[in-house]
């Protein structure tokens, strides 16, 4: 690791002041589960590391007057799991349970998970996000790379496992900096971008900016679920993933939202797939059609065509799971009928 300066601010304004030091590359440290490994590999070579975990205002989960839940940037994944305020976001909890490493859950933060740098092995070996304008990925081993949104030079997939579910839940982020007292609220989906040049990151944060909170609006009776296709149990990134949230009124879907993970350089919003569900009864057939719609524009690379089917399955199972159907797996009995969950009875009476 290159040596660096270290600071541990106790207020948000101190953090911004420390992050905006001229001519210094700064890095934000929370749990460190991603950053410290990247610094050891010299992929990140910051001059100054700012640990935000001692800032009181970032350590809480709170509900505001409108019912939205604010999760501070120092809140760990297990604290999110344990908090009663987050019970109405089952899809996010399912993803954290799937991360299934007690260390990552108790050391890693929710915001840190959203900001995790791509797992692309060319990036992690120091070849940059675009890895020679996409050439290394095209000509090399691209089995885990993007199948959507990959027509530009970026071929990595966004690393966050939580982002798809939080986007379907309508989450926003609060960002402070780089100016003193500067603050903005941004849709979580707008935090991410597909870089088109080596000078761009996979998110829109400027130097000196910091995500302080994730804000999830009250969800009421809206159904949500996430499904990850993994090659085994464990904390490895999934091969494909999808999250869905939807209202079901008189047995029919209204206002569905579907977002895919692990398929594109940013969380992939599948609007056509969500539209295909609207007005329909959720069953194997309508859920499968949503999966096919979601992947209609897929452009696989030389070694990852298999991901298309996995992503279709992820969408189908996320939709079925949200509607209370059993999709198998460790946490549920093998049934192919709607479960007798109270939420489903309310919605499909």
């Amino acid at each position, binding site marked *: *690791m290159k*040596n*660096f*300066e*270290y*600071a*541990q*601010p106790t*207020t*948000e*304004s*101190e953090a911004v*002041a420390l992050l905006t030091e001229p001519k210094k*590359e700064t*890095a934000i*440290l929370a*749990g*460190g*589960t*991603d950053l*410290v*490994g990247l610094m*050891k*590999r*010299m*992929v*990140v*070579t910051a001059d*100054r*590391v700012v*640990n935000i975990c*001692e800032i009181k205002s970032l350590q809480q989960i709170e509900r505001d007057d409108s019912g939205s839940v604010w999760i501070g940037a120092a809140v760990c994944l*297990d604290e999110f799991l344990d908090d009663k305020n987050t019970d109405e976001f089952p899809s996010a909890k399912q993803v954290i*349970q799937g991360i*299934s*490493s*007690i*260390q*990552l859950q*108790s*050391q890693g933060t929710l915001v840190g998970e959203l900001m995790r740098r791509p797992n692309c092995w060319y990036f992690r*070996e*120091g*070849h*940059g*996000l675009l890895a020679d304008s996409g050439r290394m990925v095209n000509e090399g081993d691209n089995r885990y790379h993007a199948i959507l949104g990959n027509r530009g030079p970026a071929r990595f997939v966004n690393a966050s496992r939580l982002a798809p579910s939080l986007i379907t839940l309508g989450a926003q982020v609060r*960002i402070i900096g780089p100016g003193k*007292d500067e*603050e*903005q*609220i941004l849709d979580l989906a*707008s935090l991410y971008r597909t*870089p088109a040049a*080596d000078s*761009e*990151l996979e998110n*829109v944060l*400027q*130097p000196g900016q910091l995500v302080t909170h994730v804000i999830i609006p009250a969800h009421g009776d809206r159904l949500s679920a996430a499904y990850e296709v993994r090659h085994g149990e464990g904390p490895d990134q999934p091969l494909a993933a999808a999250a869905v949230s939807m209202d079901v009124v008189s047995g029919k879907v209204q206002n569905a939202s579907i977002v895919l993970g692990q398929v594109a350089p940013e969380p992939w919003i599948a609007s056509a797939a969500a539209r295909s569900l609207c007005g329909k009864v959720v069953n194997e057939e309508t859920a499968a059609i949503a999966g096919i719609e979601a992947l209609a524009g897929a452009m696989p690379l030389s070694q990852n065509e298999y991901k298309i089917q996995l992503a279709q399955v992820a969408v189908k199972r996320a939709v079925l799971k949200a509607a209370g159907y059993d999709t198998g797996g*460790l946490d549920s009995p093998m049934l192919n009928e709607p479960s007798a969950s109270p939420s489903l009875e309310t919605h499909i009476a």
Partner: protein
Amino acid sequence: MSQQSSQGVSRRGFLKGSGAAVAASTVVSSTEAEAAAPGLQVVSGETSITMKVNGKSMTAKVEPRTTLLDVLRYQFDLTGAKPVSLDGSSGASTVLVGGKAVMASTTLALAVARKEVTTCESLGGDVVPAAFVEHDAQQCGFCTPGFVVAVRAFLNRHPDATEEQIRAGLNGNICRCGTYANILQAVISLVKGN
């Protein structure tokens, strides 16, 4: 591949010119109190910190880049936690900080200053290592200290865990000998014992 690392685009390169306009309303808030001096302190070079390790107050000389694992192994001679993976993916460096399982290899020592650290060395009288012995839950033993601490943290959090919860909850540790079946039995015995 590692020789090529230095040719990669640095994060500084990415950050330059990444100031894309953000499509969002900007509001000004002054909820935070004016910056207090201690929080603005910047540490560089070597500095002394203290932490409470296995109940004992200990002092270490660290640089900002020193990890908790470096301090435990090379200054405190607590070699139970193992350096296996750069990114903590093996779980072999698991210790408890404030009662929570963390990977000492991805934790900076400065972030643990004044906190309570528990390593496997303090679990000698605990039921977890005894159950590992009872169920022959190790072969080469290199992963065992990390596993023992992770199991302790897991049982503190889920004293009544089911077998499925145990299988899912201990995924952060890797055993290259493949003694998972016996580790599982050891943990199951402790749940039932509770």
